[in-house]
């Protein structure tokens, strides 16, 4: 069953149209990736789903419920969490407080504690540094924190925006292993990634965006073999 169905959304920044009729679907338990050049509208799509932007036309359904009438903070309550581009951790809050904020939408103390354990088991480094101010973490640790914080919302759908950006190659692999692990725990993931090679290696399916439109959609395996994708996004001549 599709957890997320996006139908023909058009999003504008003022007068500039960023999305020109995007339609996509994400099935429960999948990892779906959006790839495309900078400015193609990948981030805009995620921001539209999470409610930070509002589509001028089109609908977004999460398990049959129309999301476009909700604002960003309400959408979190519906079970969608997002790790924004650049990670967006609260640098002046401690690691623990950052994670608390991730669970802001929830009141079930017991389950939160369990989720916290899960996050710490995924990222043992965070447990060591839970009292530390988040701004002093290294880049890789910040990415862990951002991901862990999003997991604290116990989302059914996790939106990841450029998780590997600015990370050392050695950490990139780790990151995608974690993404796979999160998915194995049952969380559906919509992944926007610059590093198409890695993204397609973990994803089940992928969509290719160009200037606000979807030009290609297929399973990850097929996309990897696609000539255009190889040339433009995988760097294979």
């Amino acid at each position, binding site marked *: 069953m599709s957890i997320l169905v996006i139908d023909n959304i058009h999003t504008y920044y003022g007068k500039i149209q960023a999305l020109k009729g995007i339609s996509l679907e994400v099935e429960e338990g999948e990892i779906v990736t959006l790839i495309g050049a900078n400015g193609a509208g990948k981030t805009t799509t995620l921001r539209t789903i999470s409610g*930070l932007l509002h589509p001028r036309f089109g609908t977004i359904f999460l398990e049959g419920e129309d999301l476009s009438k909700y*604002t*960003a903070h309400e959408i979190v309550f519906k079970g969608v969490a997002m790790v924004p581009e650049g990670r967006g951790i*609260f640098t002046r809050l401690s690691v623990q*407080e950052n994670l608390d*904020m991730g669970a*802001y939408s929830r009141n079930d103390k017991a389950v939160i504690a369990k989720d916290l354990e899960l996050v710490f088991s995924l990222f043992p480094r965070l447990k060591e540094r839970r009292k530390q101010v988040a701004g002093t973490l290294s880049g890789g640790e910040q990415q862990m924190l951002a991901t862990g914080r999003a997991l604290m919302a116990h989302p059914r759908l996790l939106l990841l925006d450029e998780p590997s950006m600015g990370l050392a190659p050695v950490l990139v692999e780790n990151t995608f292993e974690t993404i796979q692990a999160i998915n194995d725990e049952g969380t559906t993931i919509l992944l926007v990634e610059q590093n198409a090679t890695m993204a397609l290696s973990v994803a089940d399916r992928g969509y290719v965006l160009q200037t606000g439109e979807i030009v290609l959609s297929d399973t990850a395996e097929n996309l990897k073999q696609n000539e255009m994708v190889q040339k433009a996004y995988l760097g294979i001549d």
Partner: protein
Amino acid sequence: MLKGFLDRYLERFSWVSFFLRLFQIAAIIIIVVGVYNTLTTAKYTNAQWVTLVFAGLAQGSIYALIALGYTLVYGILLMINFAHGEVYMAGAFTAVFLANYQAESGFLARSPWLAILSWLALAVVVSTVIAILLERIAYRPLRNAPRLVPLITAIGASFVLQYTFRGFYGTVFRSYPTVPALQGTVNVFGAQVPLVQLVVLIAAIILMVILYFFVDRTKRGKAMRSVSEDHDVSRLMGINIDRIIVTTFALGGALAGAAGIFNGLFRPQGVFFFMGFFPGLKAFTAAVLGGIGNVRGAFIGGLLLGVIESLFPNLILEGLGIPAVNQLRDAFGFTMLVLILIFRPQGIFGERLAEKKA
């Protein structure tokens, strides 16, 4: 070798640093000379100095409570809520009628603490409501406008509030009744300090501690801190930032309302529609002094400013042979601000906002 060294030095020579350094040295010399002269003439007794310090602390705690409102709002919206002084006025000006009514009817004499609490409640409610309305009408629609636009609406709101209350309550200067229970003095370091000043100081500190715990420990408080870092990411956490912003304004309003009552206890006269303007400016100064956006800084800045104003003109300027020093008090307060900011461009407790990010 020497020439090379000299060249290198001259190339890096900055007139700005040179003059600022000169300025700092001059300021320190002036202060030291002034203090020395004043103290050696022994014009004032120690008791008089202590009196001035406590009067300054009481005054400072009122600045501090108002400054907290500035700083909270600044932390979250990065805007100067110029009308905050008027929020303070609104509460104080409204509660004065209740206070006088209770004084007339004898209620104040019968149960003074209950009476004061009721004034406090009224002032806090009025100030809070005004602060919330202010946010709703004058600031929220402009949240994404260029930075100076809300500053102008804030100035406009400041005028509107002043003259609204002038229209409502008239132009007559009102006074709070004196509370017999708060009369009398306490012996501190050999000086007779009025009880009411201590009460005001302690009450302000208690409020400050409560606020600190609220911001530091509670879920709402943490959400406030999150919002102050990043609006969008906070929304992604499920935080309703509108509600957090309203909470912030309400908190600032409530503290300003309390400040109004403390002011009425400590210095009953001069309750009128313009009473908020200068304390507002001073509190804003105090907030900057402490490092705007920083809760602790605002409080310390407020107390410091109160003491500077109360003590320093007599202590420093008089020793320099300047006539009518108290006239220069505000100028002196601002000069101290400039001095402190030259030493520490981010204020006393401020984060290094001014540090270059490249």
